[in-house]
């Protein structure tokens, strides 16, 4: 029964947390755009982030929210393997970006689901080899 009571609190606290992250990321990116080229310190990377989302709406919201945050961009997802392919602008290391995205996803899922339920991420190391079946084009997922 307490999950009914804490649900609105979780939704509102997610919205405030996301607004804070959104503004901070905006300032960060704006400063980097205006910095002289010699001191630009961009370290972009495309990272496979294991995701805990299950339903269509969860996948849509988490990938949109990642893209909406300046500096990070969802390029594509693999629902089958539970992976978000995220392009980050300031990536210090694989673990840092994965932790950042997974924190956002944890908070989002706790706000979206009445019972937080299963937040586990079954794929620890992403399965990256393409399928064996024939078909043209590259990198299609």
């Amino acid at each position, binding site marked *: 029964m307490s999950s009914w009571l804490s649900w609105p609190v979780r939704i509102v606290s997610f919205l405030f947390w996301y607004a804070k992250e959104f503004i901070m990321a905006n300032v960060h990116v704006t400063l980097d755009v205006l910095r002289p080229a010699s001191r630009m310190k961009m370290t972009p990377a*495309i990272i496979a982030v294991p995701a805990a989302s299950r339903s269509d709406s969860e996948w849509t919201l988490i990938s*949109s929210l990642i893209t909406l945050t300046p500096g990070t961009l969802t*390029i594509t997802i693999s629902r089958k393997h539970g992976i978000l*392919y995220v392009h980050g*602008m300031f990536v210090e290391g694989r673990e840092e970006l994965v932790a950042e995205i997974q924190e956002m996803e944890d908070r989002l899922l706790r706000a979206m689901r009445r019972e937080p339920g299963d937040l586990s991420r079954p794929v620890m190391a992403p399965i990256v080899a393409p399928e064996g079946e024939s*078909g043209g084009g590259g990198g299609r997922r």
Partner: protein
Amino acid sequence: MNDVSMIIGVGAIFLGIFILLVSAVGLFRFPDLYLRASAVGTSAGLGVACIVVGALLIDFSWMNLIKALIAVLAQMLASAVGSMAIARSGYQNNSLPADITWIDDLRLTRRDLHDQGEIPR
């Protein structure tokens, strides 16, 4: 009260113009499609949202509040979905990330590189 909301509204409009200007500068300064899409797509969304909120504060009514909320939500959604569509189709059409991109997990999923033997299975 009217003066205060007028000043805040004009401030929000100028902030929005500044954000749009910065993202336009970003278009020229960033080296590849993905950096441009992630910086510009979202900053442009925020810039338009700021301008809409500023206009709302200058000319406030409940009807305008509803219109502004819908406009901001639609703008955010459109800029997010648009950036993702551009980035995804760019990757599928061989627009490679700039050399400073130091990890590229998506590259490992490319079937054509596996066929050429550039990446071991």
